[in-house]
């Protein structure tokens, strides 16, 4: 504990607090601008941290990470465009809230629950990182396969309204995700002899196109139709815009979503975008009023934002306890360790305790700074809504192109956002939900890779997958999740057919 208090004291020195304010603020900017992501902010600042001391460097990276992940909610709420991939699910209810004049409340809810989700996960990181990290070692490709298949079946729950449309959207995601060389054996699929297609489509350009470009196209259509686009009405807000009673009504939602975020964060490779969508689905399923999800209720924002910030704490656990990075961001942090001559691994807690506790302290303080900065920023952000769309949207398109390019430094990614924008626009016209296309795009490569790796481990036996308890649990749950709605639909159709003499539906 002494070590921790010392670390906290070091972090609270003026110079390091300044650094953290800077980091969080820059992170928020990167997070809130569609096209620029947390990973980009960190990639940009990584070389600068090489010239700092290890503690200052890590403090800066942690601040950027926390700022960026929470900043994503701003454009998700105000523009219906996720600022980072992690804030996709925040759009689902955040944007409808804004349309109803509750932008301030949606932001306030997002900010506070980002903070709380982060706080819960950092507490877990500080107190139970080693046992949690050990738990992840039980996950072989077989368990990953089971978990990702389970997550994919959740598409059914995202398909609000028509199941067929949900599945269709999911198929589009799967199809686009299979473009490029296949995992493991490197066979070319759907590359049409175009070299740029060899490495497939990247997640970020895909999301930018699907959300941002589509949104711009829709807005453009409204202009050309010469409709008067009314600026969104704004209700005055006090504090964070919600009452204590409303806050306490979310306590289970907060806990559940944070745990989902933490759990997904600990498992390397899945990431914040999946965790926030899964938390959103879980909140909807557990809710007494699932039909209200998507119409603009704070429950949806709470679920998404507490989960994606909890994922940060989760992702740091295997990094610090095992020296294993869970995503692109933590991989870059690992690089930061190495540059400073720190050996990542299970003994880091012993050999460099001051450094590890410094990161813990930085997480807690940066989380606090995020809350403060965004509380004061809130009133500025909502002014964005007053900016005419014909000024705002072109700027956003430029940022999107820049962001898509800088993912992998090639023009092809920037060009591909137009294709995805078109696909997103057509999907909007056909009233297909976007979320299943996103989830399936993210999960498809994970499922395929882990299936093939799992089959190598079991020497080709599918049956052996069911011999593993964790995998068995998730596979059975997935099967149940698929069958139950089918049975229900079948029964209701039969009931309808029996109850009416007219032609049966379906």
């Amino acid at each position, binding site marked *: 504990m002494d070590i921790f208090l010392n670390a906290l004291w070091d972090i609270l020195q003026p110079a390091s607090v300044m650094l953290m304010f800077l980091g969080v603020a820059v992170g928020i900017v990167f997070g809130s601008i569609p096209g620029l992501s947390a990973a980009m902010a960190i990639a940009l600042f990584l*070389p600068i941290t090489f010239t700092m001391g290890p503690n200052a460097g890590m403090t800066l990276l942690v601040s950027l990470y926390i700022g960026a992940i929470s900043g994503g909610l701003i454009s998700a709420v105000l523009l219906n465009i996720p600022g980072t991939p992690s804030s996709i699910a925040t759009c689902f209810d955040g944007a409808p809230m804004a349309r109803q004049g509750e932008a301030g409340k949606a932001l306030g809810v997002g900010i506070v629950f980002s903070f709380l989700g982060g706080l819960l996960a950092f507490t877990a990181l500080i107190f139970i990182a080693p046992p949690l990290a050990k738990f992840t*070692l039980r996950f072989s490709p077989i368990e990953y396969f089971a978990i990702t298949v389970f997550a994919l079946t959740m598409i059914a729950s995202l398909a609000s309204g028509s199941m067929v449309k949900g599945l269709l959207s999911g198929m589009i995601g799967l199809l686009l995700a299979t473009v490029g060389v296949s995992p493991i054996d490197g066979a070319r699929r759907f590359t049409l002899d175009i070299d740029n297609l*060899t490495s497939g489509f990247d997640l970020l350009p895909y999301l930018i196109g699907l959300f941002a470009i589509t949104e711009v196209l829709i807005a453009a259509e409204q202009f050309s139709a010469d409709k008067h686009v009314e600026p969104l009405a704004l209700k005055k807000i006090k504090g964070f815009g919600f009452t204590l009673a409303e806050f306490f009504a979310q306590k289970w939602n907060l806990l559940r979503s944070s745990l989902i975020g933490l759990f997904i964060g600990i498992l390397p490779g899945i990431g914040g975008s999946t965790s926030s969508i899964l938390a959103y689905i879980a909140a909807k399923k557990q809710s007494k009023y699932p039909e209200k999800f998507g119409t603009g209720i704070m429950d949806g924002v709470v679920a998404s934002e507490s989960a994606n910030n909890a994922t940060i704490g989760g992702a740091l656990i295997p990094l610090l306890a095992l020296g294993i990075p869970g995503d692109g961001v933590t991989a870059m942090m690992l*690089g930061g360790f190495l*540059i400073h001559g720190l050996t*990542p691994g*299970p003994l880091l807690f012993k050999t460099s305790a001051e450094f590890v506790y410094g990161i813990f302290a930085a997480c807690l303080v940066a989380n606090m700074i995020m809350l403060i900065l965004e509380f004061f920023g809130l009133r500025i952000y909502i002014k964005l809504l007053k900016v005419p769309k014909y000024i705002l949207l072109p700027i956003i398109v430029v940022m999107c192109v820049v962001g898509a390019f800088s993912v*992998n430094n090639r023009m092809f990614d920037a060009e591909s956002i137009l294709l995805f924008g078109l696909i997103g626009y057509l999907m909007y016209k056909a009233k297909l939900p976007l979320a299943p296309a996103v989830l399936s795009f993210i999960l498809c490569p994970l499922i395929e*890779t882990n299936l093939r790796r799992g089959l190598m481990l079991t*020497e080709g036996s599918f049956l052996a997958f069911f011999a593993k308890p964790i995998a068995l649990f998730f596979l059975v749950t997935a099967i149940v999740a698929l069958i139950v709605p089918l049975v229900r639909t079948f029964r209701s159709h039969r009931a309808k057919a029996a109850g009416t003499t007219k032609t049966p539906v379906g």
Partner: protein
Amino acid sequence: MSDLNHLNKSVLSLCVLAAVGVAGPGAALAKDYPAKPIELIVPAGAGGSTDLSARVFAKHAQKKFGKPVVIVNIKGAGGYTGSKTVYDSAPDGYKVLYTHAGIVTNNVTNTAPYSYDGFKVGPTVIEDPSLALFVGGQSGMKTLGDLIAKAKAEPGKLKTATEYGAFTYFMLLKLQKEQGIQLNLVDVGGDADKTVALLGGHVDVMPKVYLGTEDYIDAGDFTVLGVAQAKRAPNAPKVPTFKETGIDFEYHEYPFTIFFQKDTPQAVIDAWIKIAQEVAADPTYQKDVEKLGMVPVYKSPEEAAKNFAAMQAEFVELAKEKAEVAGQK
């Protein structure tokens, strides 16, 4: 000022729309080289060993060049997307490739239509000779001899972590061929995934560089069987060579090397040779590389090309035999 130079990467990435316009025809004459910032293309994501070693090299090289050397990460298709960028670039020395044996394995596995000889080979500037074999601490195996005996007792049973078609994959193929054993080669992914797989007991054997394993060896989770080199690796001096433990098995080191578009003028390559020699002699560079757990070197383009040619011949042979074995099944 060097901070500002680091920032150039970012500035360049962000202002690339402008840069695309600049990088057109009218490239500077070779004798004035470099007249503008050089892009060092790293065909891998930020944060990995290729990226970090490239950054350290670039940091020192740009001081000597007097112009920024900007790291540009272009990942995808096992490195092909990045190498293709340089392959297709203008032969003016402003887009230069920094990569290792992946340039050969990409060709042998039919991902890339060209190999190392699709480029002008430059000097090798960093090496990692610490590629070793690891087993679980409780496995009872202490040496490569134990592993071979176990593999002979149960052919095809020892689960061995690899990444199909990568550098370590050919190491394992070579081991199988030379020692007449059959392992169960399982693709688990990159270094981090391999470490998890061995820690979690999902595999029995793991080939990996020494960096990042020391803690696990000390804690008794891993046993290291040896490095596949003629001499002990300077970055893993405690680990014996396989030869010391009684089995004659050698493989290559990771050779981080500079490559140029095929028609690049010799004057440009000579400029890089001079810089690489100066950088290699710089003690602060040596210290920076050692911090990364790697070895600073200078190997001339001729030596480097010979090394890559040897890998090419060996990997093609191994891949052919592997295909024949698979065909017989």
